[in-house]
């Protein structure tokens, strides 16, 4: 293809790879944060924090590369959309990483006391949220706007689970006030998982923009 733009194409590929690397780490951290919660495994929870430092470094690398390409290559059209989307996805993934760290911190708090109840909905939420991140990045790699649009129903499901978790835990606390110290972290975790799903949705919206040039965020989908 490109006449004389091979270097630029290689740099774009590098950006693609950096984002995928971040994505892989983020998915793993979401999974492990809820594993640490379920298995009351404080050591696993701490690993997530170390991994998050690497994620932060990768985000800076993505920022750096995007700014360099914008400044030096005068990207246009699809390339311009790819790079600005890359910047946004990098920041969404970094935020997701922070939320996974926060879940891990709650898991550490809860590691040395018996769980309030067997976890059912939170693992389902985590699985959905992780799947959404995975699909959003898959859509990014495949430049597939339809695949990105496939995320919208899952976002509603995650919201629904968050409401279920909230109602159930509030009910438990109203019956037994001593349950609060173990219920509130779980409510916070469900809120974080819902935020992760929101970030995945942001990524999917950006992918639609990248592929079709249409802005769909903050509007009816």
């Amino acid at each position, binding site marked *: 293809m490109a*006449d004389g*733009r091979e270097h630029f194409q290689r740099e774009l590929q590098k950006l693609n790879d950096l984002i995928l690397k971040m994505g892989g780490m983020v998915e793993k951290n979401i999974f492990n944060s809820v594993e640490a919660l379920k298995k009351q495994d404080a050591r696993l929870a701490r690993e997530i924090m170390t991994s998050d430092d690497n994620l932060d470094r990768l985000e800076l690398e993505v920022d750096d590369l995007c700014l360099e390409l914008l400044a030096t290559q*005068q990207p*246009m*059209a699809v*390339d311009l*959309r790819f790079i600005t989307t890359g910047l946004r996805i990098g920041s969404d993934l970094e935020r997701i990483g922070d939320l996974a760290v926060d879940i891990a911190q709650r898991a550490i708090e809860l590691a040395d006391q018996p769980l309030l109840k067997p976890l059912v909905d939170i693992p389902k939420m985590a699985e959905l949220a992780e799947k959404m991140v995975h699909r959003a990045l898959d859509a990014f790699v495949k430049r597939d706007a339809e695949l990105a649009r496939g995320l919208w129903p899952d976002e509603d499901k995650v919201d629904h689970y968050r409401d279920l978790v909230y109602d159930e835990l509030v009910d438990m606390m109203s019956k037994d006030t001593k349950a609060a110290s173990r219920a509130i972290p779980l409510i916070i975790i469900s809120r974080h998982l819902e935020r992760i799903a929101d970030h995945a949705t942001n990524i999917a919206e950006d992918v639609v923009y990248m592929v079709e*040039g249409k802005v769909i965020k903050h509007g009816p989908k």
Partner: protein
Amino acid sequence: MTNIIETDKLNLFYTAFQALIDVDLKIERNRITALIGPSGCGKSTLLRVFNRMNDLIEGVKVSGSVKFDGKEILDNEIDLITLRKRIGMVFQRPNPFPLSVFENVVYGLRIHGEKRRSVLEAAAEKSLASVLLFDELKDKLNMNALGLSLEQQQRLCIARLLSVTPDVLLMDEPCSALDPFATMKIEELMTLLKKQYTIVIVTHNMQQAARISDECGYMLLGELVEFGETKQIFTAPVNKKTEDYITGRFG
């Protein structure tokens, strides 16, 4: 009417070679319209249609319609002198006459019969001021224009057009002989001039088209492939061929 120039099914042949194919284009008043495309795509030919400059080339046949201010300009009856007074052209290489700065600016007025010194002087001052040259050159109006810098020469050529109060300025690669700083100053000038004039520019410099134009057309092999708002053309063009060209994948 906001469209100052409109073409409809415009076709142009250089003898057997078809240089323009069914071009439908609307140019809005007081806007900068850029035409981009690879060498030989027909963009300069199209520009020259607007003031009938192609008439000077042997074997040119034109069909279709080109309306300027609602009036057909392909008609044989059209007065070319008047047309070219209202639609002036700036070229790649500044082409001042080997005359004084003053005589360059008032050249058009003299040709159109103006003899009154006061009118010529007022027009020279106004035109030079419009291209931000008057303060620089007011004490050097008698110097030979060929002694000016290239950027000043290009400004002077624009002033020469302005003295006959045109409506449209056609610019064919007006900055290609200039360094980046001079280019930037001419671009600034263009954005000032569009308040009073309509500008159509042909440029090989895509960043220049992106920076200064309001509307942009992409031409390829004689066809106007895509025409639209500049912002849209450079962020999300509709046609794949446009995208390939502006992202450098063309070829």
